């Protein structure tokens, strides 16, 4: 919904995915460099890195596409 001058809900979702993705990606990269003593099952797949990266990418796209300044123009 982005009627009038309101900020689109999809922009808020973009922010959420971007920040969460960045935090998860960072944690994944840190764990890659410093493997934990008790890793989770399938640790070698590095799910934090690719899932965090995916969320970050989608979040970035949403933030740009539904940015308030683009909606007003």
């Amino acid at each position, binding site marked *: *919904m982005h009627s009038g001058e309101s900020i689109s809900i999809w922009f*808020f*979702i973009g922010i959420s*995915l971007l920040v*969460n993705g960045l*935090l998860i*990606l960072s944690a994944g990269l840190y764990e890659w460099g410093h493997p934990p003593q008790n890793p989770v*099952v*399938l640790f070698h797949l590095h799910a934090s890195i690719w899932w965090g990266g995916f969320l970050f990418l989608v979040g970035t796209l949403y933030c740009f596409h539904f940015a308030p300044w683009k909606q007003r123009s």
Partner: protein
Amino acid sequence: MITALASVSAQRLVHLSPVDLAIIIFCFALVLAIGFYLKQRANTSEDYFMAGREMTAWIAGLSFLSANLGSLELMGWAGASYQYGILAAHWYWVGAIPAMLFLGIVMMPFYYISKTHSVPGYLKLRFGESSRALSAISFAMMTVLMSGINMYSMALVMKVVLGWDINFSILISSITVAIYVTLGGLRSAIFNEVLQFILIWAGSLLIPVLGLVEAGGWSNLKARIATNASAEYTHLWSTLGSFRDNPMGIHWTGIVFGLGMVISFGYWTTDFLVVQRVLSAKDLRAAKMAPIIGAAFKMFVPFIVILPGLLAIAVLPVKLTGEGTAIATGGHSYNEVLPLMLARYCGPGLLGLGITALMAGFMSGMAGNVSAFSTVWTYDIYGALLNKKADDAQYVRMGRWSTLGGVFISIVTAYFVMHFLSIMDYVQALFSFFIAPLYGTVILGMLWKGATPAGGFWGLLAGTASSIGMWAWVKLSPGAIAYVALSSHASDMAQNMYRALWSWIVCVAVTVVVSVFTKARPEIELEGLVYGATRIPSEKQIPLIHRPSFWAVVVTVVFLALNYYFW
């Protein structure tokens, strides 16, 4: 579930890292920011209670589904799938999809064209004040009580999973929901529900994906389940020929008629908690599309709820047990499936997102309850019975106060339940008393011009009374289950299905009989309320790809294919 969790030791299932806590705190901050931002757009009653009736089909549809996706729903059904196998998916497919499509295609035009603010409001237009009062008071009471029970349950989950103090969980979550719903009304609730819907998927999706990788694909998963449990756990329909042939102790008639035709239609088409989201749509086409979009996503929720339960049977090194055994042995119960699977695959960051998904589920469910309560209280009790001359500003003010009041009653209920755990079973049963008969009243009102105001009221009352009567009968005389649920082997779940079916039949029968002997309203007064007396806009000028009926057919085909594949 609650009794078990309450009795479990304080030992936590998972440990959060700083990055997990950062993700959780960010989620709370964002939903509050949305509430403060949307306060400026909640000035009129139409804004506050109906979100200005300007939501797109996508937003209304996702919110419609999200209001139902509570954290207990996620954890409870994941546990049920570990216990009963894929049979639990019936609650997502036959127990939801037909009803959601029916709401969109058949019922939504009447709700939307009548411009009602609530389901009790529709009953007022169709049957008069007495039917509205009966359904409004019962709905308002049950909604806040259920909200309180969910709040307590969620706090217990946080205690078991994270070791958090129950008081802390109750206060933080309820204050957050109270702030964003009180400030921004339904629009704020809907925005946050859509956000929380995305978080639920983002936080839960990795479990089935990684689980399938570990199990070696669906075929290998089925083989391992057959070894560890039974091959019947992966069949949806083929074991329902007899009460004794499946772990749920249910017959296909209970699933099809009780769940599929009464309980699910009652919940998805007349429970104002979910219907309110669709009423916020910007036009009739969006209102019809919203439940269809919700149905399309609902079909795939078993991927993040049912599949983790099945995967747990195959990959978890420990055997989960029922509540009593788990308490006695210090082991894990069925209901801990989702947190256990989360801890199995998710490291720092992902774990925080998974926990955020559970919290998001709770907040969206609670926001749905309090916003629906606030609307029904303000329009159907305060405006209809207490202050008939209230102006628009008074409605908004009462909406904000009743939202706070709803949260407060929920908190009181949560603490009440904490001290009297057995009360929970009674309140949950009470809630089920009203759903099936209400559906009988609404559907007859919409589809039959001959249904009279007296018929509607007495049918609703008789249906509700018969449901309470059957429940009390079985409580006082357990052998009565053989009559109510058609088998002495029927489980509690099966009993609920049949009780709903009988109470619906009683409601419909009484409504018809009373209507035959009382005077119906003139057809001119039924315009916009009843099939045959309402001109529903044609879809012929709309391109096929944009027609709700086209997408309803698409969803139906996928729904049938899923049932066939997992037969």
